Structures are given as C-alpha cells and as structure tokens.
C-alpha cells in the first residue's frame, strides 16, 4: 500500500548491504567438504581387489575396464586373478558411486577432488599405474567403517555428536595421512560373512558356504 512494501523491500536490501558476503572466493577459500563427498581420483587397493569386476558391471555408464589373467598363485582355491588393466574413463564418470557400493571387498573408494581439468580427453583416463601409485585418501561414501560407526543404529537426534578426541569421527579425506589397505577394511561384510576382507585366498576358512553369494532373488516376504 502506498509504496510502503516497496520501502520495506529497500530496507531488506539495505540490511543485506551491511552483511558479510555469503559467497566463497573459490581458489583462495574453500568450503569445507564433507568426508562423504564423491569426487574424482578413485582410490583403489590392489591388495583387496580380486579382479571380480563387480564395479565394472555395476557402473551405469560402463566406464571401468578391467582385464585379468590367471596368476597361478593359488591354484588349489581356484586361482587368483592378476589385474592387467584397470582403466576408469573419468571424462564420462558421473560420480554416482555405484561402483564403490558394488565392491564386495572394500577395494574401491571414491576420492574427494573435483579439480582435474585436462586439455585432452585422453588424459582423463585413470590407468592402473596411476591408481597404484596415487596417494590414497579415500572418501567415506558407502564406507561407514571410515566414519567409525558401522553397525551403530543409534545415530539419531540427541546422540552426542563428534566425540572429543575420537579420531574416527574427525576423519577428513582432504587432510590427514593417506590410508593403507589394512586401515580401510571392514571385518565382516554382509554378503561374504565368513570371508574377511583383504584376505589372501589361502586363508579362507574351509566351510561350504564360505564364498556363497546370497541368492539373487528378492526376499519373498509379505
């Protein structure tokens, strides 16, 4: 009425004039990334990888290329594969993280970078050597063991937040030391109950359902 609301609008903008800018001046300042951030620079632990290519099969875009050959190292258990090619075509990756979700042995992790600009698409392919030699700062996306509360179902409003001095809760992939393959695994995995992640094949306990996958059929409940 009578332009009073317009005057009110002027006051709102004037109030914001005196406020500190909300934006972040990117190259100098950075927003704090959450450890779950799904970024490039995939982290791959060769010690954990069996070459099953679950990640390649589960990738919606099919950008992971894996080639293996019999290694002849564990013939009695059905041999172990040696990985020859593990290419990730990063230029087509959409960072959905399904490959990480599919990996049964905690061998593949997302990274947390987002700045890998290249002049050529060829350079965007991460090869097995790059994966081997990269410094390993895994993201906690779908890896609750890194966040330190695996199996803790009491996470809800009201529970104490980050415990003081508890380093498990303050894990930050962008800072801190790189993690080795022994530090990132889970002791037990739902789909491989008897098999410990990171085990070499000779160590698998001799039970019939040791390597048993769950039935692919959905539960026939209800």
């Amino acid at each position, binding site marked *: *009425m*009578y*332009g009073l*609301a*317009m005057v009110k*609008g*002027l006051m*709102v*903008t*004037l109030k*914001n*004039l005196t*406020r500190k*800018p*909300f*934006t972040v*001046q990117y190259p100098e300042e950075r927003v704090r990334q959450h450890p779950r951030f799904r970024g490039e620079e995939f982290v791959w632990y060769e010690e954990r990888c069996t070459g099953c290519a679950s990640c390649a099969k589960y990738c919606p875009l099919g950008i992971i290329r894996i080639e293996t050959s019999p290694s002849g190292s564990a013939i009695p258990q059905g041999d172990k594969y040696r990985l020859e090619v593990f290419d990730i075509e990063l230029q087509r990756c959409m960072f959905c993280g399904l490959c990480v979700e599919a990996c049964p042995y905690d061998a593949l992790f997302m990274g947390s970078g987002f700045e890998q600009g290249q002049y050529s698409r060829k350079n965007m392919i991460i090869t097995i050597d790059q994966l081997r030699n990269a410094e390993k700062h895994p993201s906690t996306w779908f890896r609750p063991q890194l966040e330190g509360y695996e199996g803790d179902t009491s996470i809800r409003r009201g529970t104490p937040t980050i415990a003081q001095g508890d380093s498990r809760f303050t894990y930050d992939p962008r800072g801190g030391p790189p993690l080795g393959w022994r530090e990132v695994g889970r002791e037990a995995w739902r789909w491989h109950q008897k098999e410990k992640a990171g085990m070499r094949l000779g160590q698998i306990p001799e039970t019939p359902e040791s390597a048993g996958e769950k039935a692919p059929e959905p539960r026939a409940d209800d």
Partner: protein
Amino acid sequence: MNCQLASDSVLYANGLYRVVYNVAGSFLPCWLAYLIAGLVIIFILVNAVLLGAAVITWGERRVLGRFQNRVGPNRWGPFGMFQPIADLLKLLTKEDLRPQGSDRIVFALVPILMVAPLILLTAVIPFAKNAALASLNVGVLYILAVSSVSSVAIFMAGWSSNNRYAMFGAARAVAVLISYEVPVVLSLLGVVMVAASMSLGSIVEAQALPFILVMPMAFLVFLAGMSAELNRSPFDVAEAESEIIAGYHTEYSGVRFALIQAAEFGGVGVVAAIAAVLFLGGWSGPWSEYLGWLWFLLKTGVVVFLFIWFRATYPRLRIDQIMAFSWKFLLPLSMINLAAVTLEVFFLRGDDGSLTTADLGIMAAINIVVTVVSVIVFGNLIRDRVTLRTRQPQQVAVPGVPTIEVS
C-alpha cells in the same frame, strides 16, 4: 598578443578556461588560444565522463554484489577496481560484428550518437563554483533538449539491427522516453520558477534550502522520470534482459557495445550530477569555496547509490504499466506540484520577485504536506490492485468442477 575574453561570453565564468586562454593568448593568436583553451576543457570533460562511466560500472557491480550478499568483481586491482579496464580490453579485442541485413551506416552511428549527448550535457554542469564550461542562461532547457537525443539513437539501434528483439526494445524505449519527458519537464518548471533562472549556476545559488525539501514531489517525479529515461530499474523495459535479451543493443558487440555501455553508465553519472545540481544544492555546503567539488561529488554519489539501490530491489514494470504510471500518476503529481509552487511563489515573493530562506521554509512545509496527501490520494486510486487479500490454506469448492474420485 593581448587577447581579451568578452565578459558576457558563456565561457567567461569558467576560471580554468580563462587561465588557459590568457596564458595561451600571451604568445599565440587569439583564435588559436580560444581553440586550445576549449580543447583542454573538452579533454578533461570527455575523460571525466568516460572515467566516470568506468567508475560507476565498477561501483555498481560492487555495490550490487554487496546488496545481493556476494562480493562483486574482486580479481583485478584493489577491490577489483581495474575490472572496467579489463572489460574494455576484452571488448576492444573482439571481432567487429554487424548482423546480416542491418543498415550498416546507421548501425555504426548509434554508439557515437549515444555518447555524444552525454559529453555535451557535462558542458553546463557546475562541478564547483564557476566551474561549468559554459554557464548557459538556458541551462535547464539545454539539458532537456540534449538528453532527448538519446531516444533517437536508441530507435536507430533497434531499427538498424534487423533483429526483432532489438525492435521491441526500441519501440518500448521510444514510448517510455517520450511519455516521461512530460512529467520531468513539468517538475523542472517548478525548480526554474523558484530559482527564477534557467542557468544551473543560479539554480544552485538559489538553493538556500535544497530543493529536495522545497519540492519533494518534483524530486520524486524527476527521479522516476530519469530512471525511465536511463532505462534503469524498475523502468528498464527497453533492455529487459529476461524478456528481450538485451533490447535495442542485442546485436552490438565489441567496441560498439563498450560505447553503449559507457553511455549507459555515464548517463547515470551525468543524470545524478544534474539531480544533485537541481535538487540537492550542487556544490553548496560548508566551505563550498574550496570544497565545492567534494560536495558535488558526494551528492552525485548519493544519487548514483539511489539508482543502484532501486536496481537491486525492484522488479520491472510492464510497458503499459509504465505508461500508465507516467500519465496517470507522475503527470498529475507534477501538475499538482507545479500549481502549488506557482501559487506559493506568487504569494510569497518579495517586491523584486525574489524568495528569502524563510519563504523557502514555508514552501517546504506546505509542499511536504501536499506531497504526502497527493501520494496517499493517488495511492488510494490504485489501492485495489496492490493490496494483499488475506488467504488461509483451505479447501475451496470450485463450482462446475466434477468431484475427483480418490481411488
């Protein structure tokens, strides 16, 4: 050679001009001294306008950024001050594009025609006491006449671009410019009447009380009208970027675009300067003998800030609403203002036709009341369109609509 500048010359009042003229005239022919002195002043003015445009570009982006809770340009120089220079360099190195089917000559003329009136306008603005290049005794008339040239340029731009968006923008701009000329002229008539002069210098001197207080309504009308003439928000229909891309300068790029932008932002500065002179008392203020230029710059800056503030806050009006606003709101207001001022001047003026400061105070008191009353009266006329009906979330039965079955 002993050259003597005639004391009734329009250039006589300018101290710098006289100094240059006398120095040059001491060893050069008079006509050459006249020319050199003129060129010196013109050099200063042209650079002032273009630099002012650059400063306003930077300031606007910076302040607008803060209004919007962001930082604005901050990469080049301290506080991003060199951003306009970087922009200019980028635009200068661009390809000179002319759309197919455009009128080549008219298309190329437009940027020049847009910048020229601005520089002409600065000729009469008194930056400080006796610092106008030409103290024209018809200064206000000159301003109105010269500033209207830009509407021709805008229409040329729209017509020659061979682009329908540009044509839309040009048609809108011309309609707006012509209708806003009328209330602006009427509001300035009041100023001229009180100051009893059309010369900008005399108008500043007449402002014992700033005319914004004496005639607040005239200031409102002038500000709105000038926003419209500058295509500034909320009247920026001519280059409404969300509707018609960039309006009349859709097809311009490179150095031509740079000139059009310079004209636009320079225009803000020049209009703000005019507003400061006409309504805010120009260079007058404490120690105006020495700090007049500072007062002038300060007041101009305040008006520029007002323009930026409006731009940061308001949405745009539609073209027919802008026309209605001009003819149905601003025109009556300016006429009321004119009538009030006429009567007040008639009854309050002394025997010699002059007004004392006390007279101005009485006028201010009356006019502020008149302004409030008329804004309320005219606001009431359009009240129905702008009042928020209170509504509560509720089920509304719609007649004629079949009830929808929920399965």
